[in-house]
């Protein structure tokens, strides 16, 4: 990582809002985050609304405290292994085909990229409000996450960033 020598030479910062858990949105989020971090950028990702499900452990089937939250978690399974295409999912066939193509071309999967992001020091922030809405707790998530954030804290972070993306 580059050295920080004062305001003019501070490490460039990128903040990304991951709002969706569609495969075709999460993949670019992870590619941009890892590429940014590998290039020496300080990278933050804020996972909110549908995007929060990306941080869920793959083996977690149902989550939530009441029937509405549990029902939602069954309908929209979380974890990077269960992401679906927003178009041409075709009951799983389209998604399986894209994943198979990616494997053939040795493209790193979203699960691999999430692990790499963590290794490269990308900070992964769950959205506090969405956690409460879905009834998700720390135990439902993968390891190495930052303290959950609210909108005001994210805006503060975004205001300090050189690149801000909403995906």
């Amino acid at each position, binding site marked *: 990582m580059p050295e920080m020598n004062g305001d003019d030479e501070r490490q460039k910062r990128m903040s990304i809002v991951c709002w969706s858990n569609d495969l075709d949105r999460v993949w670019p989020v992870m*590619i941009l985050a890892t590429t940014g971090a*590998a290039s020496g950028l300080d990278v933050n990702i804020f996972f909110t609304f549908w995007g929060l499900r990306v941080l869920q452990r793959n083996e977690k089937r149902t989550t939530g405290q009441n029937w509405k939250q549990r029902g939602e978690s069954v309908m929209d399974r979380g974890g990077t292994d269960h992401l679906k295409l927003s178009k041409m999912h075709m009951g799983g066939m389209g998604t399986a085909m894209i994943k198979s193509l990616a494997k053939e071309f*040795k*493209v*790193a999967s979203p699960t691999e990229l999430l*692990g790499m992001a963590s290794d*490269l020091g990308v900070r992964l922030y769950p959205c506090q409000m969405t956690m409460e809405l879905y009834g998700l707790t720390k135990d439902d998530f993968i390891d190495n996450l930052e303290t959950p954030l609210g909108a005001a804290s994210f805006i503060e972070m975004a205001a300090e960033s050189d690149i801000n993306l909403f995906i």
Partner: protein
Amino acid sequence: MDIDIDAGVRRALAEVREGALSVELTLHFCGGLVTKDAVAYPGAEDEAAGFQRERVGDLDLYWRQRLVVEGSTASRVSTEIVPRHLRVRTKDGMLSAQASYE
């Protein structure tokens, strides 16, 4: 990192009386994708060049992880990213490696 070296690799190395194996892993952050490459070859490598040595049974495995970023003139060796699984096997009489980061 889980390391899995097939019996065929051990036999191939024994045939050339080699007790070491090297694997170079590369992640390419280029062209809007992140792609993985892994190359395995007989013999030891230089730890000063960023290779890490691991004893796997009766073999010495030397491995390093390189990152190639689009627009950069040189690749860099990363100690931050470590594959979760590494498999080395023989394929069509050649050594072949595959890394997984899941």
